[in-house]
């Protein structure tokens, strides 16, 4: 009986597919890089050279609405902001991994797509806004880019670089699981629905580096890494001092677990990463940043 069923299924399938009358002509999509007069050609060539060729990353700045969550209304990023972020991401992110970890680490493990979106994804009912997300272990989407003030490093970190470290950490733990014990450090206060009602101070006292970290374990894990990398010593120490004894102990335990996991599973020295990022954050020379592509290589030269 089964045999007949499958045979018939094949016949029907063949019947349905046998009728394709459409002939496909050559594509009419024009590759802006091949179009010598394209407005964005120079930027696209730059992206190809410094992102696609070097890191096998597609840097998406022209928005295709069907690639976004239809439940949210968003707008594209401006070309100017995309240009700035592309340069800055090389300086504060790619080049850091190249110099501190290895020149091939992000080629091997980094995201394959970075998508920039101009606005945040706003959930008015919850009173929250999404600043970034990672999908399928390969794509990082960064939001609210149009609101970025390029001389405000705290804002850049909050909107972009913390988000990039956060989302990239998701990509890493999606490949190699983080220790189960991490979730046992402060297991009872995770609240995926009401985390936004907690102040930063309340989150610290409960043993989380941010209120979002208190939403669920995996967010806690990547928030710990991301906050540690981008927060200055002064900011990190302020948090520890104001977390109370219990909170500080929990945060330090979590940090130690993140540090160990990165070293053991990925051979990444979290503290060396942090030192390098902090050094670069403190010296944002825009003329330099906007003039360079392969920073690490140029530095060596």
């Amino acid at each position, binding site marked *: 009986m089964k045999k007949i069923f499958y045979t018939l299924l094949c016949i029907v399938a063949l019947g349905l597919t046998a009728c394709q009358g*459409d002939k496909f002509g050559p594509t009419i999509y024009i590759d802006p890089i091949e*179009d010598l007069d394209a407005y964005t050609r120079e930027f696209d060539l730059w992206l190809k050279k410094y992102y696609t060729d070097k890191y096998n990353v597609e840097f998406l700045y022209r928005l295709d609405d*069907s690639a976004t969550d239809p439940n949210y209304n*968003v*707008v*594209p990023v401006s070309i100017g902001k995309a240009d700035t972020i592309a340069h800055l991401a090389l300086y504060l992110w790619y080049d850091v991994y190249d110099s501190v970890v290895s020149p091939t680490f992000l080629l091997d493990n980094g995201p394959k797509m970075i998508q920039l979106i101009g606005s945040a994804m706003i959930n*008015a009912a919850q009173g929250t806004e999404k600043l970034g997300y990672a999908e399928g272990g390969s794509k990082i989407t960064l939001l609210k880019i149009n609101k970025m003030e390029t001389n405000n490093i705290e804002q850049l970190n909050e909107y972009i670089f913390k988000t990039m470290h956060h989302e990239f950490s998701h990509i890493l733990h999606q490949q190699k699981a983080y220790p189960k014990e991490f979730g046992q450090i402060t297991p009872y206060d995770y609240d995926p629905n009401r985390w936004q009602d907690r102040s930063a101070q309340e989150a610290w006292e409960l043993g989380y580096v941010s209120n979002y970290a208190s939403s669920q374990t995996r967010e806690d894990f990547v928030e710990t890494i991301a906050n540690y990398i981008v927060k200055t010593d002064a900011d990190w120490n302020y948090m520890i001092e104001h977390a109370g004894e219990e909170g500080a102990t929990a945060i330090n335990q979590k940090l130690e677990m993140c540090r160990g996991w990165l070293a053991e599973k990925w051979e990444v020295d979290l503290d060396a990463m942090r030192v390098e990022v902090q050094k670069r954050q403190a010296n944002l020379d825009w003329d330099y940043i906007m003039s360079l592509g392969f920073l690490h290589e140029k530095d060596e030269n």
Partner: protein
Amino acid sequence: MKKYIYIVLALASVLCACSRDEDSLFDKSASERAQEAMENATELLPQPAAGWEMIYFANPESRGYNIILRFDKNGRVTATAKNKVTTNDKMMTDSLSTWTVKLDYGPILSFDTYNDVFHAWADPQNDGDGLLGDYEFLILSATPERVLLKGKKHEGYSIMRPMPLDMTDEAYFAGVATTLSKCFSNDNILTLHQKGERYYLHNGASGLFAISAFGTKPPTVDPIIYPICATLDGFMMCFGFNGDKNERMFVMEETRFVGENGSVIDHDDLNVMFVTYIDVNKGWTADLKNSTGAFADAVTAFTTQLQTLTGDSKAKVNSVAVTYSDTAFHYEGSYVLRIKYEYKKSTKQNLMADFAINVSDTKKAGFTVLEYVAPLNTTAATWYQQASEMPNLVAAIMGEYALSVGSDPLNPAKSLQMAKEGSTLMCSGASNLK
């Protein structure tokens, strides 16, 4: 047995799925047609020398806006707009970003990098929705004269037409503003003639027509709303009236708008409109400076008597209006003639004399008939008895009027001429008479 049934069913499905005799409605395959549509649009958009006027509806429930777009073949687009909502009534010019035409479920025009002018409608702002506008559009049709677009997410329809040559952007927006002020008023009532039926259209100045049965006011709960957008030569609707959803463009003529599929919008029967206008809780107020004849004389006579009686040489009549009052329901006709006047006697006295009157559009064919009934408040009763010019003034207003449109033929509520033998009243619609 079951085996044979399956075989028969399978064969039937195969045979049905693959009828080679069926004639195609098109000469080309779907993919070829989609490619052609994309190529056509890609070539067409940079062509108009002065760019395009886009009549943009962010979504099917909001008023439309005018944007000037100029595409170049290298992927650049500039946008210019001037409106209260996104540019604070200032001209925002030539904001630069990129455009592309791509294939989704049809050819899609996408404004795919941020443009300060264009994306203001799509920005989620703080509530996640903003103005619920689109920046990706399905191209429904594209010719050198007109491109019809449908917003991909929020489904507002928009039209692009070539900008007139030799017209500055400032002149374009000034022209649109002229159409708006000339033809649309929140006090306006227009008549839609569509396929032998008549309907009333209310408002318009807010960019939304409320529709109702002829001679009636729109329902207060869930009125049926049609978003519109003024253009240089008339207006566009996001979607046409129920009888013809595709009739979007209406061209302005001297006394009417004519739709692209033959519907007409005018002021139709002014007598019916006069009465209905009062029924929607508004009224008519006389233009005391520009009215002439017996009415003007009566106003002058009453003013003189008022000054004599009060000893105030500056006493004056402030307004004469026909309106509606709940208390007038006790009287036949249930309308009110309201005369407001003032004088000073140690302190300023503002008086309002209300008289019940009949207003009828049926008593005499082709005329609006005003008939005096009785004083409606104490002021009216007292002055009607004690000031002899007050009954004369009231009598000068009563009568059989032939109505005609004044200076704005498409907007009778702005200027209506009421003529009877020996007297001409110029009136305008008013909503603050109650």
